[in-house]
């Protein structure tokens, strides 16, 4: 990690700002007017539509997180009544999972980048891509409707028979919302798989694809195979509520465990739908800012597929205390441990990529470091929870809450922000302000740890999740957690502000500010609507920095 010479402390190379201009024609100014956006087939514009809508829902979900933390500031349930608190965490979960985390990286960055990374003009089915955004929007609107009408208090898991027989809130509205949003996710995944199989440019072999594409491919398999099972589970819940049948009601001979099986058959793989695309972002960022090919490219590529595959065989670890047989619990515990192997392959390979690399610390890299540390903690505590004895002690406590927030927020959200900063110059043609964004990355990291580290201790000490009140001895740690959430909130507001500012005032980024090797960096920023003027022919391996240097030398000699 020798950065002794001063010119090595950054790799950012921007064009001369006094003469630089955005390209005359690009996908943003290609057409004008609201309709040209609402009826677009361009994957880049749809990505922007998604980015705006998921940001909106992120802050709504975040507001509920804030309310939850405020309520937990004191041991009594004094801010809101207990059932209102139930609605808070349910809405927080539903919005964050189905409307933010699942579409976060795939629908925004994936939509924008996958065709370009493959050298294609668009995704295979542009109209289905647009349809998927409208379905997302319909799902989001229905969720908001459920919220405005009075909310849902089943928890995001819709546990039966609680959701079918005991609650009188807007379960069917919320269930329909998730059903519709699920189809949006299926169509995104389907589009990605077909595009990756059928639309690669000449020379773009499977093992020349960026790892971002591999990880989105793996996530797409999960979307396509898992989401329909959630859909049918939700349809059955809605039918049971409407008609009063006992498919899941033990009083009528139904099996509540069946619902758990169907629900977690999707919802565990969904965790990998959320994290895999983030891992893809991290591969790109770590390679670029270490100036090295990702160590063990093939292993990292296959580990994504392995996570997707194993992800389908671990769902019952959510049900250890729900009466599954000891034998199946044992098998599922073992299979759960197996997922740690491909995850560790990724972490180790990133670490080896860093080793002896020319590391620089731009904002995306700071977020990526945050991801590596926090995801490792999140992943390892997952191994704790996968072991039967520990799980019985820790399940339904704040330990679980801390664990999945380390993976989802510490992991996925960090990766999302890394990706947004990394590709911001490509999407908008302008740089974000570097020092302010570094500050935001550090604030996020501090705020995150302050929020969720205390929750590990709280959970270990036995504080149950999903309660508005708790014994007074837990107050200190809860106050720390709430204070951390405030810092975290600031950390998330900052990018919203300075990224908005940079749209107009940011420095002109040029084609390739990071000197990165991906196809997306070899075209103008922001790209043309058709991405490439002529179909690129890929004659170099992924992350080949020598190829890039050679290409740039040749350009200099031809121009000069």
């Amino acid at each position: 990690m020798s950065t002794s010479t001063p010119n090595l402390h950054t790799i950012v190379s921007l064009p001369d700002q006094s003469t630089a201009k955005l390209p005359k024609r690009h996908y943003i100014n290609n057409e004008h007017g609201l309709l040209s956006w609402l009826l677009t087939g361009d994957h880049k514009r749809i990505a922007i539509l998604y980015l705006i809508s998921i940001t909106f829902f992120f802050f709504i979900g975040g507001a509920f997180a804030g309310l939850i933390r405020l309520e937990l500031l004191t041991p009594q349930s004094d801010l809101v009544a207990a059932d209102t608190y139930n609605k808070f965490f349910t809405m927080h979960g539903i919005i964050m999972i189905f409307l933010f985390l699942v579409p976060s990286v795939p629908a925004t960055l994936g939509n924008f980048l996958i065709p370009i990374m493959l050298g294609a003009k668009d995704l295979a089915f542009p109209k289905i891509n647009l349809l998927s955004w409208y379905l997302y929007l319909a799902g989001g609107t229905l969720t908001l409707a459920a919220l405005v009408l009075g909310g849902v208090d089943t928890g995001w898991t819709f546990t039966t028979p609680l959701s079918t027989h005991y609650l009188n809130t807007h379960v069917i509205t919320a269930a329909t919302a998730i059903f519709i949003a699920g189809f949006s996710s299926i169509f995104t995944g389907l589009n990605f798989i077909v595009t990756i199989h059928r639309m690669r440019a000449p020379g773009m072999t499977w093992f020349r694809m960026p790892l971002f594409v591999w990880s989105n491919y793996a996530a797409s398999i999960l979307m396509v195979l898992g989401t329909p099972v959630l859909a049918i589970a939700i349809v059955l819940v809605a039918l049971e509520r409407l008609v009063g049948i006992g498919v899941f009601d033990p009083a009528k001979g139904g099996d509540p465990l069946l619902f758990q099986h169907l629900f977690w058959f999707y919802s565990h793989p969904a965790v990998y739908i959320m994290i895999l695309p983030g891992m893809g972002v991290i591969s790109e960022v770590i390679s670029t800012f270490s100036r090295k090919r990702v160590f063990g490219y093939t292993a990292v590529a296959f580990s994504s597929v392995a996570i997707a595959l194993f992800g389908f065989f671990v769902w019952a670890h959510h049900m250890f205390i729900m009466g599954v047989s000891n034998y199946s619990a044992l098998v599922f515990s073992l299979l759960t441990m197996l997922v740690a192997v491909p995850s560790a392959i990724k972490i180790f390979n990133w670490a080896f990529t860093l080793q002896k690399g020319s590391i620089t610390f731009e904002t995306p890299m700071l977020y990526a470091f945050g991801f590596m540390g926090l995801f490792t903690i999140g992943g390892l505590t997952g191994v704790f929870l996968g072991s039967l004895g520990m799980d019985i002690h820790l399940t339904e406590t704040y330990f679980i809450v801390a664990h999945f927030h380390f993976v989802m927020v510490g992991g996925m959200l960090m990766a999302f922000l890394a990706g947004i900063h990394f590709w911001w110059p490509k999407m908008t043609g302008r740089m974000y302000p570097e020092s302010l964004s570094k500050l935001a990355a550090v604030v996020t990291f501090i705020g995150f740890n302050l929020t969720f580290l205390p929750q590990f201790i709280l959970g270990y000490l036995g504080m149950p999740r999903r309660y508005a009140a708790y014994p007074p001895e837990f107050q200190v740690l809860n106050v720390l957690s709430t204070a951390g959430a405030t810092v975290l909130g600031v950390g998330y507001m900052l990018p919203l502000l300075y990224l908005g500012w940079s749209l107009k005032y940011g420095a002109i980024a040029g084609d390739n500010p990071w000197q990165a090797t991906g196809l997306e960096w070899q075209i103008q920023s922001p790209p043309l609507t058709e991405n490439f003027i002529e179909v690129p022919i890929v004659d170099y391996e992924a992350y080949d920095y020598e190829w890039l240097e050679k290409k740039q030398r040749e350009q200099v000699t031809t121009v000069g």
Partner: protein
Amino acid sequence: MIASTNPAMHPHTHEAVDHAEHEHVALPQHRHHFETEEQQREAGSFGMWLFLLTEIMFFGGMFFAYLLYRNWYYPAFTVASNQLNVPEGAINTVILITSGFFMALGVWAAEVRKKGLLVIMLILTTVFGLAFLGVKADEYHEKYELHHIPGASFSTAMFTNPAAFGLKEEPLAPDMAQHTEIFFFLYFAMTGMHALHMIIGIVILFWLTWRAHRGEFSSGYVAPIENFGLYWHFVDIVWLFLFPLLYLINRHPLS
């Protein structure tokens, strides 16, 4: 469309080499973001297969529930299954296979560019599809009359006291008889979801027939017909699993 500078390297544009030789006229349905029509066709068909995979997972959830409850409540499931109308189910199976046969002929007619034949085949496919739904509606009506539709009007009287209905079966204990409601719920959920797929298919068939009538599929552009054919056959196949599972297997309690 910009041609690849080196088509020989392109896995999908081996056709492109021929373009220069054969004066290929681009089809109006060719979308600009595909390099070749072949690529467009392959992508469409691949996408349809993937979609069918999601459909399998969707129906799979219900088959799983059926498997579980059939295993648990075996006596209730056999007597309830006895109440299904096997002749009508069998006739429907024949109708649906016939409909699928005409669909297959339709795909062939599109491929050999026979417009009139394609339109006739699509109409026949639709007619047999509608016939299936008609028979299904009659079966549903029968269930309604027998109070076998799950919900408030559901009655287990036929299973607790079969003699009163002229049935020779052994009466079930009331709690086991209650579980026939789960059988009928799964019956309605599975056949209803299947019928919903048929209805969607028939709407698409109307649209395709109209487009075929306008001659859209008579010049070598057959992807929509082929892909819809895949969907229609898939719906057939679902029924081919539903019919034996719900109507036929082990219709009598183990003795």
